[in-house]
């Protein structure tokens, strides 16, 4: 996400970059820019579209007929529930800047206070940078929605709906908001002060969701029959439609993270397109060589892997860096979703970790390399070497993996104790659509 506060901008030395930035003044002291606002209204709608229906269809197509509605329901219900949490306290915990000071690490470096709970102080005239804070609240809300929705892929086809809601309410509050705060709340934030480059959410969204997904897959256990019996996707057509919506919506995600309609947003759009295309082609090529045929599921999964990996990098790299990141994402996520998963034997049903975890880590680390001007990037902060930036990126990756992994595990255990995580064997066999929702996705008889 674009940084609003002046303190850190001084470190940036690249004139071209500076020229694209709004003048470095404190948030709130700027004037509303209608161009920026128009773009951010649009970007917000695009990112919401990524979850409903984009991700919902992408995931919905990948499960069996008897579970399609359960996945759509999970994505839709999360959209509604996270909205409520966000306005009650989520936004405050993520973005309230009370007690944050440059270079000072305190509790407020990790989480916001309740100062903006119930959106206190967010009125029609409040600004964030050059856009209304109301738009900023909504834009960030769409990120807070899609992140838990990504985790759905790991426990699809077997988790209780009530347990899912409870877990996600806790996860959004205790995991998403703090990691978001560390990265994006501004000067004094843990990642921010380290100089971590995470433009649109490599740590906040993808590694965060990816590791929680892996933990969820491990805690819940495998689906009945996995991996002895085939569990093929019921509609790759829906999956392709969903993947296409994700790709389009991602322009809001990455170019919107400039929080302005400027050159930085333009470059974010370009590198997003390039990295996604390269990852799609790479996955296709690797699969073609390894399994003899290029598959539709392969190319769309590759595209999503590329979108994930370019996310943290989209504010720092150039088109050539995007090519490298796309290729790396294609190869590594293919390995993550196929070899790694089979070797370790966990049932990450729709490869939430294999794509978002591995892709997020790949992107976050490579951002530290390809951000350098010598590799076509937009330049590292003054006096920072590639090695140092890589180290900083690594700290943010490990912090997210450990924090999200451990807290997710604890929350899952708590929820398991309270309501139980899994549906009964009988409900699982009948399918969640009938057993949890009294409906079926398709009723084709006349």
């Amino acid at each position, binding site marked *: 996400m674009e940084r609003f506060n002046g303190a850190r901008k001084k470190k940036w030395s690249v004139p071209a970059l500076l020229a694209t930035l709004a003048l470095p003044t404190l948030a709130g002291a700027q004037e509303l820019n209608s161009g920026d606002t128009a773009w951010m209204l649009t970007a917000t709608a695009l990112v919401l579209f990524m979850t409903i229906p984009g991700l919902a269809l992408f995931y919905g197509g990948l499960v069996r007929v008897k579970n399609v509605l359960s996945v759509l329901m999970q994505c839709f219900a999360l959209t509604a529930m996270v909205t409520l949490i966000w306005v009650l306290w989520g936004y405050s915990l993520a973005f309230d800047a009370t007690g944050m000071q440059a270079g000072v690490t305190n509790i407020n470096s990790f989480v916001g206070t309740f100062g903006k709970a119930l959106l206190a102080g967010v009125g029609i005239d409040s600004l964030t940078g050059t856009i209304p804070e109301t738009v900023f609240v909504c834009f960030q809300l769409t990120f807070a929605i899609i992140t838990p929705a990504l985790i759905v892929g790991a426990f699809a086809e077997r988790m209780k709906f009530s347990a899912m809601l409870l877990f996600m309410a806790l996860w959004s509050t205790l995991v998403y908001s703090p990691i978001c705060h560390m990265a994006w709340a501004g000067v004094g934030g843990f990642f921010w002060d380290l100089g971590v480059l995470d433009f649109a959410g490599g740590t906040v969204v993808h590694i965060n969701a990816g590791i929680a997904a892996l933990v969820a897959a491990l805690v819940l256990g495998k689906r009945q029959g996995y991996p002895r019996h*085939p569990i093929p996707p019921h509609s790759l057509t829906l999956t392709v439609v969903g993947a296409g919506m994700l790709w389009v919506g991602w322009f809001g995600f990455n170019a919107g993270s400039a929080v302005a309609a400027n050159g930085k947003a333009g470059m974010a759009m370009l590198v997003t397109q390039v990295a996604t295309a390269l990852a799609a082609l790479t996955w296709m090529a690797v699969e073609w060589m390894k399994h003899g045929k290029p598959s539709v599921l392969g190319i769309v999964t590759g595209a999503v892997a590329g979108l994930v990996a370019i996310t943290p990098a989209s504010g720092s790299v150039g088109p050539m860096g995007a090519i490298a990141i796309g290729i790396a994402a294609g190869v590594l996520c293919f390995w993550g*979703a*196929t070899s790694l998963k089979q070797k370790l034997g966990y049932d990450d049903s729709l490869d939430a970790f294999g794509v978002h975890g591995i892709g997020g880590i790949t992107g976050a680390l490579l951002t530290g390399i390809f951000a350098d001007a010598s590799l076509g990037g937009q330049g590292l902060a003054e006096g920072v070497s590639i090695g140092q930036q890589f180290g900083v990126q690594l700290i943010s990756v490990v912090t997210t993996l450990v924090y999200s992994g451990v807290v997710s595990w604890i929350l899952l255990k708590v929820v398991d104790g309270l309501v139980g995580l899994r549906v009964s064997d009988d409900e699982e066999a009948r399918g969640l659509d009938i057993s949890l929702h009294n409906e079926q996705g398709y009723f084709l008889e006349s």
Partner: protein
Amino acid sequence: MKLLKCIVRPSALERVKEELGKLGVTGMTVSEVKGFGRQKGHKEVYRGAEYNIDFTPKLKIEIVVADEIADRVVGAVKVAAHSGNIGDGKIFVMPVEEVVRIRTGETGDAAI
């Protein structure tokens, strides 16, 4: 009267229907079925996970005909559904004791 149960490739249906029409066969019942014989199934790969799909989709065509034309009908199905490759299917022939047309109450050959 004979009942023919023909398991054929889905792609053979139109040709079988045409050929049987030429022989004066006036009705048939078609169902979508799955199964395997010598053809076995096929392989599908989803994100690197290879599945052997043992059951292949086929159509089951059920036809009841008079004894006199049963052999010719079997021959026609055999020709129409033939591709020469493994998986063309099978025809089972069995005797039928009685046929009743529900609307009129006719029985026997007249009800076919």
